[in-house]
């Protein structure tokens, strides 16, 4: 063991630390940590942070490692602290519609527990169900269901956080309505591990609707697909999701259901209401859906949407006001030169019609220096155009050299004034993924 790993295993136990080859799969934006530690309690997390503060090491909190390549590359990666071994469901009260689990529990485990009582966690963040609860909160991203249920920030009730200076904070609680003090839960949601390590999470649950129905509408081209998606988001109904899906050029289309653009509408209602919603949606579409999928099949099509980032080498999140989604989609033509048409499946699009967020996934790139330069200039230009219009461009995953050149996040405006202070308040020694969230 290297000295760093040796020191940590002395403080915890040998079985809780790995280094060398075993640490390679825990690389953060291409940088292999000197050690990966698997604490089993808040006290151990605090101990790791305390040693790291003394030694000046940078720590990157994580779960199973799905998101380590996301976000801005941190300035230092000495230790990855994984919540993987803290994975118990600690409280589930069906009558109270909440579940509390340690941060390393995965979303699939939640699903198994709650489905017995016909309840669920109404979130479908990209990355599938193997992702951990802690990572979902730390990253804070949402999928198509954001339209109907909000994002993780709207559904988290409580969390335990070990701050950079080793304090164990109990944030929020188990109840939906809670205004006892400042809402620090909001700060840690989407904080990418820079304020502390999330060790347990309490989430709000929803009853499973009597009917889960997806309606699929096919479009001849992208422009008419996006117009249809916008139209369907304007019904007076509270639909669970309206998503435009555009497969890559090189795709047979099997995974997304078709090779031409699709608009997928998800309805979660009682049976009678689902029939009525289908009628209203079809009327607004001006055509019947080419496919109607109920129950497991409906869930499956949206599980595919969650998996759309799998295998992508570059993932972007673009946004403008929802009414400008057609322009936003149009602007992706500027990205069309970034993938090699002979390799990979090309460029996929998934747009949330209610929020105006467009995910762009690209596979098949040559990643040469020349390509990095070209891609960087395209992304910087596109970001500038979007920011000028009140929108944004986030590079959520990509080759580290590209993300380093472009910056993951873009302009945060006048609020940047407070960001450094927030981090210093909870991580005064700046040991937690420094630079991951700020530019």
């Amino acid at each position, binding site marked *: 063991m290297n000295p760093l790993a040796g020191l940590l295993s002395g403080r915890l136990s040998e079985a809780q630390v790995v280094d060398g080859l075993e640490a390679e799969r825990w690389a953060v934006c291409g940088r292999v940590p000197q050690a990966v530690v698997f604490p089993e309690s808040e006290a151990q997390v605090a101990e790791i942070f305390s040693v790291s503060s003394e030694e000046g090491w940078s720590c990157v909190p994580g779960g199973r490692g799905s998101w380590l390549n996301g976000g801005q590359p941190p300035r230092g990666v000495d230790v990855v602290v994984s919540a993987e071994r803290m994975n118990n469901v600690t409280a589930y009260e069906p009558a109270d519609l909440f579940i509390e689990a340690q941060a390393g529990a995965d979303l699939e485990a939640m699903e198994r527990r709650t489905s017995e009582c016909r*309840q669920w966690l109404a979130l479908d963040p990209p990355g599938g169900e193997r992702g951990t609860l802690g990572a979902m909160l730390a990253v804070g991203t949402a999928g198509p269901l954001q339209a109907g249920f909000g994002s993780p920030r709207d559904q988290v009730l409580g969390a335990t956080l070990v701050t950079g200076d080793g304090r164990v904070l109990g944030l929020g*609680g188990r*109840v939906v*309505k809670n205004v006892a003090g400042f809402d620090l839960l909001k700060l840690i949601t989407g904080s990418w591990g820079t304020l502390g390590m999330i060790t347990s999470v309490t989430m709000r649950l929803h*009853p499973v609707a009597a009917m889960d129905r997806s309606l699929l509408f096919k479009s001849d081209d992208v422009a008419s697909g996006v117009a249809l998606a916008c139209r369907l988001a304007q019904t007076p109904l509270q639909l669970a999701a309206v998503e435009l899906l555009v497969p890559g050029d090189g795709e047979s289309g099997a995974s997304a259901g078709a090779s031409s653009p699709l608009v997928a509408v998800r309805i979660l209602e009682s049976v009678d209401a689902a029939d009525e919603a289908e009628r209203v949606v079809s009327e607004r579409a001006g055509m019947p859906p080419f496919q109607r999928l109920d129950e497991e099949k409906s869930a499956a099509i949206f599980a595919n949407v969650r998996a759309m980032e799998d295998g992508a080498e570059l993932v972007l999140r673009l946004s403008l006001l929802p*009414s400008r989604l057609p322009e936003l989609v149009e602007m992706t033509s500027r990205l069309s030169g970034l993938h090699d048409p002979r390799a990979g499946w090309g460029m996929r699009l998934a747009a949330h019609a209610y929020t*105006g967020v467009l995910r762009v996934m690209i596979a098949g790139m040559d990643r040469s220096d020349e390509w990095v330069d070209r891609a960087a200039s395209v992304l910087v230009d596109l970001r500038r155009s979007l920011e000028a219009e009140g929108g944004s461009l986030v590079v959520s995953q990509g080759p580290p050299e590209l993300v380093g050149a472009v910056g993951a996040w873009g302009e945060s405006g006048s609020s940047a004034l*407070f960001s450094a*202070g927030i981090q210093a308040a909870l991580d005064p020694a700046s040991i937690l993924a420094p630079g991951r969230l700020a530019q």
Partner: protein
Amino acid sequence: MGDAWVIAAADRLLAYESDGLTAYRRTPRAVVLPKNTDEVSRVMGILSQEGVTVVPRGAGTGLSGGALADGDAVVVGTARMTDMLKLDPENRLARVQPGMINANLTAVAEPYGLYYAPDPSSQSACTLGGNVAENSGGPHCLKYGVTSRYVTGLTVVTYGGSIVELGGFGREPGGYDLLGVFVGSEGCFGIATEIEVRLLPRPEGVSTLLAIFDRLSDAGSAVTEIMAEGLLPAALEIIDGATIRAVEASVFAAGYPTDAEAALVVEFDGIEAGLAADVERAVIQCREAGAREVRTAASAEERLALWRGRKKAFGAMGQIGNDLMVQDGTVPRSKLTEVLRRIGEIGARHELLIANVFHAGDGNLHPNILFDRSDAEDLSRVELASTEIMAVCVEAGGTITGEHGVGVDKRRYMSLVHSPDDLDAMRRIKAVFDPLGRMNPGKVLPDPPAVAGAAS
């Protein structure tokens, strides 16, 4: 500003000496009423240069003393900032000034088939700026969530007069959710001068039922069973026997039977075609839980009639007591019956009448303790009972305030729910927004513990 918008005359300051929680009264040094972001910024610039503490104020309907200003502080009021700045029906967004009244926003959005979801009981008087400060709830947040879910952007002015933009719909640039932590900060971080909110399409249909119970615990069981059925009503509200009798004795009489011990209002909204089945299932659950009578509404008028007793409950309390102290604890729903029983015992032990009217669906209790302010002994018993009620809520896994905020009233109870480290973290975050500690001082956080060795 002009003389008209600076109030310093003692008689006119009287109107600002308390908010909705009249147990606390102080007279501010002055009140300033700016009309837009720039004026707020200039006013704050002057006040901060002079080192004067600032207390923001909306309509003054708060129930925790959050807008209380002592003689050193200047109140910056939003009473003139009532404009709709932008209504964007296509994107279902509105941008408003903070002094706009909650209900007025829905009225303006109505012609487009849209409405603003959070509906605190005071919605015909309270302002959106106040709602942002308190992260307000309301009867319908069981299904729709509280204010923070609907606020998508803010323009805020800091104590030093800086103008800062937080959030904004249509962009998600990464970075800390400063918008999220500002909502609910009770005026301790700065003043929101423009508010961007998300609107929702008006549900196609609404269906309401009222169930009458002989035992409060049976109404609690009905709530648990309705939720266990997988139903998600838009509202689930209970008023207890003492409250029913107060309402029926008042001008707000709603036709609730006065020998009942609980009335449960259940409301569903959404696609018309699905409502009848939901209502039917809820009716069955109410009957099985022991309801002696279930009324359903066939028209909008009948629906309002069913709600009347609930909506006017606070107003009717004057029938049974001179003064009123309302508590706001939240408990996990499954603990409702047990906690209500213990609240009853606390009332009996302190010989105080406690009338309950509450958001049962999300476990948010509003025990109203009735007393006589002129009786000093009454006051101390109210204090004791309040403390015990909050402790019971926390013990059951809940919290001390669900929607009214901490203000001055509950800051000394914050340590019931938060560790010293939690409170210290909140203190540090406040210092990021307000390093000098002059924004609404003495609210939310208890005084920090004396540092060992620092005491003289």
